[in-house]
């Protein structure tokens, strides 16, 4: 057997009769039985009396935040899979960190969670916790009578924990149970019932025999949960990640065209969800970049992805772009009423240097801009192709975009059939514009 890992200079400081002390001793025995050295284990402790655990051992230790021990433990286990990660937590930490417990059960990282369950908040004055019986007299007045205690073992098993053990902290084989939990390759929970002499038993009668009685009346939780057995999370993560192809930084689009315009040009595409407005905005920017221009694209849409207006604000400039907004657009592409309505304020500000490409079926506010109506129906352009077709018409105008630039952008952005159909669409729209 290996040496004890107890920290001789820091003996336990629990109240006389506190069950926690037995658990400290049992855990040390387990470490010895398993021949675990102090550098091979980390104790991640929660807050409260159980949060003192890490100080009694000569192991790696992280004493973090109330209810959050499982979060840091997960990071540790992923970073150092070879470590035995033991998490200690009271019934307080269990309650406040409930979401983390559920997630840990589902995730199945190889952590060992020791729940030091003594049915109340010892350190803060014996208030009720998630496991306090309804008929207990605790430091929260009558409030615990109103809430049902949690059966953490049933919760853990139904959340996917592969190993769940419920026992009295007074049971003779506690260190053997801890050993089997630590040896389990996946998330394991040991719910140890104990006695808080400092608070709980001042007003409640609770003895080891009474604990045994209560446990006997509950469904057993005695280790491996067969239906939850599966490969460990970290193992699966590493196995899956190892098969992924390497990723390199995105490449650039070559500069090979001549821009028809100089200076700064702002473009607005006013459409609706599903019209591929953002892709058209991206294409226009790529087209600008193929002509050596500086570009920015920012988008405006509702949280619901498939409904509502979809707007792209674009700037193309021969100088680096400072302000990324569009207050004096040179071009507006208006292809859906929702988009036009969202940006009502802009129309009055346009003068006749601005070009508007507008679908024939939408109403525009009063404007001095030159309006070029596009009858998409006649052009046999479907609603989701309106944005791209408008770019083709814009290229026809040859003001800020050339056909050459647009073709390069499409070649760069799309591949295979996508590219061919985009090029064909642009071709159709461009021809239509020419023959108009």
């Amino acid at each position, binding site marked *: 057997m290996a040496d004890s890992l107890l920290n001789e200079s*820091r003996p336990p400081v629990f109240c006389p009769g506190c069950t926690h002390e037995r658990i400290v001793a049992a855990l040390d025995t387990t470490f010895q039985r398993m021949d675990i050295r102090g*550098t091979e284990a*980390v104790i991640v402790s929660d807050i409260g009396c159980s949060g003192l655990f*890490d*100080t009694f051992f000569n*192991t*790696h*230790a*992280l*004493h*973090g*935040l109330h209810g*959050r021990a*499982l*979060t*840091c*433990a*997960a*990071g*540790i*286990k*992923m*970073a*150092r899979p*070879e470590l035995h990660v033991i998490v200690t937590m009271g019934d307080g930490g269990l309650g406040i960190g409930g*979401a*983390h417990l*559920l*997630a840990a059960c589902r995730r199945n990282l190889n952590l060992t969670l020791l729940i030091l369950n003594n049915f109340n908040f010892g350190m803060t004055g014996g208030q009720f916790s998630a496991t306090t019986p309804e008929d207990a007299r605790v430091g929260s007045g009558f409030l615990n009578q109103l809430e049902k205690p949690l059966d953490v073992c049933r919760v853990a098993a139904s959340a996917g924990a592969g190993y769940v053990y419920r026992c009295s902290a007074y049971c003779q084989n506690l260190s053997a149970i801890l050993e089997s939990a630590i040896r389990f390759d996946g998330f394991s929970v040991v719910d140890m019932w104990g006695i808080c002499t400092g608070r709980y038993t001042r007003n409640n009668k609770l003895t080891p025999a009474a604990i045994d009685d209560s446990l006997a009346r509950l469904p057993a939780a005695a280790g491996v949960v067969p239906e939850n057995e599966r490969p460990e999370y970290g193992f699966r993560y590493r196995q899956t*990640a190892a098969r*992924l*192809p*390497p*990723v390199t*930084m*995105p*490449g*650039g*689009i*070559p*500069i090979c065209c001549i821009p028809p315009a100089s200076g700064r040009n702002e473009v607005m595409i006013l459409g609706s969800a599903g019209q591929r407005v953002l892709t058209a905005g*991206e294409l226009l*920017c*790529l087209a600008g*970049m193929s002509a050596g*221009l*500086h*570009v*920015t*694209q*920012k*988008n*405006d*849409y509702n*949280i619901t992805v498939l409904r509502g207006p979809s707007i792209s604000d674009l700037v193309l400039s021969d100088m680096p772009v*400072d*302000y*990324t*907004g569009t*207050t004096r657009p040179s071009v507006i592409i208006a292809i859906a009423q929702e988009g036009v309505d969202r940006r009502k304020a802009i129309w009055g500000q346009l003068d006749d240097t601005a070009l508007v490409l507008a679908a024939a079926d939408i109403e525009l506010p009063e404007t001095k801009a030159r309006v070029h109506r596009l009858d998409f129906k006649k052009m046999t352009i479907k609603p989701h192709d309106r944005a791209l077709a408008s770019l083709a018409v814009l290229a026809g105008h040859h003001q800020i975009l050339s056909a050459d630039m647009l073709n390069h952008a499409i070649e760069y952005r799309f591949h295979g059939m996508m590219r061919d159909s985009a090029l064909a669409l642009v071709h159709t729209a461009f021809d239509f514009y020419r023959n108009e």
Partner: protein
Amino acid sequence: MAFCFMEGNEAVAWGAKAAGCRFFAGYPITPATTIYNTMLEILPPGGGICMQGEDEIASIGFCLGASMCGMKAMTATSGPGISLYSEQISFATGSEIPIVIVDVQRLGPSTGSATRGADGDIQFLRWGNSGGIPLIVLAPADVKDCYLLTFAAFNLAETCRCPVIVASNKEIGMTRENIDLSALALPEIVHRNTAPEDRPYLPFHTSGENGVPDFLPIGCHIPVRQTSSTHGPDGYITTDPEIIAATQRRLIAKVESAVEDFTCHEFMEAPQSETLILTYGVSSRSAKAAYHQLNRAGKPVSLLTLKRLWPAPENLIRSIAAPMRHIVVVEMNMGQYLREIERVLPNKRISFVGKMNGALITPDEIIEGVHRGRQLTE
């Protein structure tokens, strides 16, 4: 030369990777999600780790655990998530755990508007942790900054063993620009100082002058302790007022001295200008447009864009503001950093241009603010 087309959030991810980030954990939240998406694409193939936490508290908790194991870690969120990070941020400041946190700010308060930008967290980022110990906050203005400042954030976090926050904004994070990342020169990667192996290790003992404890990772050949409790150099709880006071002083001093030689600002000086526009973040881009228009119109103004907000670069602000009669603070909120400028420049005439309605401050609004402020001075 070839530009790629990238948004600020992607540039943050690539900047992190370039700085040696090996661990990312996040929880989906607009407008920060694309940082998580990009990290998920670029970290796992090289053996790095990218995880989705059950909430923001878990995500940053994963990162702190990994960082204590020696991995460079980053998380990213927006206002609602940064609120949930708060307790873990205090843990990281008090227990000296390096981490980079990206806050892609969105319009608040509270849930606010997920797809609208703002710089509404600027004071919260500095003071929104219990204990009030300083951390470092950098503010990018564009995609290039997202890359370079995220890289710098890692170096600072490692140097100083503290959280470094990149205060981005939806208007930067989700705005795409042409950028040639490969053309950007990066400084050397910094790693946290490792404790010598031949001496007994005290996890919070500082041997060097910078006041930063040497690091050993959890999992190394000596048991390493980390604790959120008030501790002495040995990493055990202490109640000794002198040790506690010395630690608090050290936590403040190490951050302030670490950023002393990290200058991070852009000053565009106009001869004979008596007005200084002082701004940061995406608003500095509008300010640049205003600067050019005003100077072209023969109304000289100078422009100072801060890229490190906390600790506030007080000396820099004072020296640049010294010859100015009038300071216009421009920010995308209702007046937050303004308070800091008023504190640093108590004798200056300071006016404010700000708004929080989901729209960028326009160059015209800044020009108008400059005129208004000038009239006040005259």
